[in-house]
């Protein structure tokens, strides 16, 4: 059955300046050694899906460099495998991508050529570890036209909820109303931007929407057809975070310091795969003092690191103190530097004795390659 399913990932361009200036949001480094897209890709690969298209909008060189042949996910296949699909200029309605329908129309050939019956369409940039096999099974059992995955956010702040596509479900879990990022949400069931349907239905939606100049898969197709289509919800009860703002990005990284989050997301039965860099193990010096931190390989730590997430190859020199921070690949923190609540993109270098302090509600975010 799972070989009957294909995956489509529409990479996202939510803006988190300056770290998304140089890359698609889906290619953002997260949890030390990963990129956001690793989670959905691994979820699909773990469900045995072997035909996956990754549609890109712009800024996709970093994404391509990360995914390449797809071998970390075992997706370098003779038949199908992983396909990176750059945008098709011809299919854009007004010379620029207006919405995800444009992206889907641009990859229509790929969709048509694929022999699978079902498709998992994943928009967005959530991190989570889900059993997609079960989702497809429930989708077929329920005879739904579309199954969409949601998470119950009862108790969350209204402003938090307005970031999501909010669903209203009846007792049978049928979706009776959808509101995309409403200012005053009516419910607390937040969509995770994942849709399962028959491939033929997706094709007809794309065709119909682009013929009418419509641009949004949710607002123009699902919302308008809510009475005709049987759209059902599938509740995901695990950990998920949507990385659409610096605040959410910072919070999600910090969540990896919690044991229950790590245990769930890095479930050994459904591993999260990523590109390997063959870096040597992390070295701790004689004066190293590291507490409550998540540390990738290839780091050299001679200073103090507390409540922080370090990507691969980060150097923390003697006397430096890093607290509550996210430091991406190959950044260098020299002697006696003091950092608190900062987000460093790759290859940032802070020279001796400097001090950079952000706030939890407003972390200080520094662009790739900056010398301070």
């Amino acid at each position, binding site marked *: 059955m799972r070989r009957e399913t294909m995956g489509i990932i529409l990479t996202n361009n939510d803006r988190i300046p300056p770290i998304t200036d140089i890359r698609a949001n889906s290619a953002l480094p997260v949890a030390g050694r990963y990129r956001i897209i690793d989670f959905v890709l691994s979820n699909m690969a773990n469900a045995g899906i072997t035909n996956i298209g990754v549609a890109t909008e712009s800024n996709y060189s970093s994404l391509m460099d990360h995914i390449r042949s797809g071998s970390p996910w075992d997706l370098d296949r003779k038949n199908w495998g992983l396909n990176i699909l750059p945008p098709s200029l011809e299919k854009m309605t007004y010379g620029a991508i207006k919405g995800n329908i444009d992206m889907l129309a641009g990859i229509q050939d790929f969709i048509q050529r694929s022999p699978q019956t079902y498709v998992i369409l994943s928009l967005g940039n959530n991190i989570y570890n889900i059993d997609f096999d079960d989702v497809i099974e429930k989708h077929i059992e329920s005879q739904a036209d579309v199954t969409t995955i949601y998470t119950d956010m009862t108790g969350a702040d209204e402003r938090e909820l307005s970031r999501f596509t909010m669903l209203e479900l009846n007792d049978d879990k049928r979706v009776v109303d959808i509101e995309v990022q409403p200012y005053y949400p009516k419910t607390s069931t937040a969509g995770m931007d994942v849709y399962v349907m028959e491939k033929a239905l997706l094709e007809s939606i794309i065709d119909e929407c682009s013929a009418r100049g419509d641009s949004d898969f949710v607002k123009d197709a699902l919302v308008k057809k809510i009475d005709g289509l049987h759209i059902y919800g599938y509740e995901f009860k695990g950990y998920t975070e949507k990385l659409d703002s610096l605040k959410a990005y910072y919070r999600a990284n910090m969540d990896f310091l919690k044991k229950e989050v790590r245990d769930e997301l890095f479930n050994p039965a459904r591993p999260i795969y990523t590109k390997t860099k063959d870096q040597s193990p992390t070295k*701790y010096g*004689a*004066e190293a003092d590291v507490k409550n931190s998540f540390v990738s*390989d*290839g780091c050299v730590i001679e200073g103090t690191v507390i409540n922080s997430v370090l990507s691969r190859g980060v150097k923390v020199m003697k006397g430096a103190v890093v607290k509550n921070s996210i430091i991406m690949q190959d950044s260098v923190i020299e002697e006696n530097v003091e950092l608190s609540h900062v987000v460093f993109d790759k290859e940032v270098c802070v020279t001796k004795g400097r001090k950079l302090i952000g706030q939890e509600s407003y972390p200080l975010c520094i662009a790739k390659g900056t010398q301070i």
Partner: protein
Amino acid sequence: MVSKDCVAMILAGGQGSRLGALTKNVAKPAVPFGGKYRIIDFPLSNCVHSGIDTVGVLTQYQPLELNRYIGNGNPWDLDRSHGGVYVLPPYQSAKTEEWYKGTANAIYQNLSFLEGFNPENVLILSGDHIYKMHYGEMLKAHKESGAAATIAVMPVPWEEASRFGIMNVDDNGVITEFEEKPANPKSNLASMGIYIFRYDMLKKYLEDDERNPESANDFGKNIIPTMLADGEKMVTYRFEGYWKDVGTIHSLWEANMDLIDDPPKFDLGDRRWSIYSRNMALAPHYVGEHAKITKSTVTEGCYIDGEINHSVIFGGVELGEGSVITDSVVMPGAKIGRNVIIERTVIGSEAVIGDGAKIGVDKSDDNKYASKLCTNDLVLIEGGANVSVGENIYKGSMVEA
């Protein structure tokens, strides 16, 4: 046929019995080393960095783990359409069926594999040494000299020279005499067990050697002395750098410790010569509130809430609060409870150490685990072994699963 300039053959069939319980279920080249590697990663990575893309790995003893580890060779960039890595176990044929009788016989039995690549030269390596070496430089020197064979040598301290195979050379590096473990060495240039042969010469001498029923079919004992006696031109290639035979528990432990000295005697951090290994797809390691890690290396998948000093910790290791590890090597997936004290110990993969256990701290003459393989007061806990809550394991012990 596309012919290869040089094909490498790694001798990986040895049992490595001096490593005791570490090689009970795996061949020596598959033994974990250096935090995230296995011994075989070193010759394999050296080959790839040296531009050698065709490698035969000759296995015999407990090959399953090694086969699975090497797989299609992708981690070393050795999944090639023409060439790549091949695991070569002994096999039955219409005329013969036999195990590899010696190092030379192992290559002899795979001459048909080599024929398939029509190589100019064959590089013979052993699968149990830790070093970084550019075989391409050696190959260049070999070709320039026009020698039938080139043997890599390194200077060793004179007082240790009688433990090695010693090459006596003239001023041009041409070998005049080879002495296996001489009582009174005339030179301190030790053979590293790394040879490059011109393929035509190798084939001729292997075939001759096979016809000699008296021969032990060994490169050091038979092939090289015979070639010298026949007056073939054989030269040395001097290697200066870190090289270690990790054949004993003590030398394996010591080689791991060499990585964490300050500065390290052997540095794996050089990204121009990365050592590749099969990735376990584990998350970054988590360092807890009660942890204190100094002068050590820690890698992916670990959960550390105790104290680690001057030790090498492999992937997926768990260490509970209140535990203290010093001067030790902890292999992948070992689970160590709370308030455990471990000193000068090698803990095998997936071993489980109960709360409050004490390992390698005290000494006793009445030690049921005493093993003469565990020299220098070291302790070895076999992979998968269980050490009970509160148990005291004395220095010099080997605890089997």
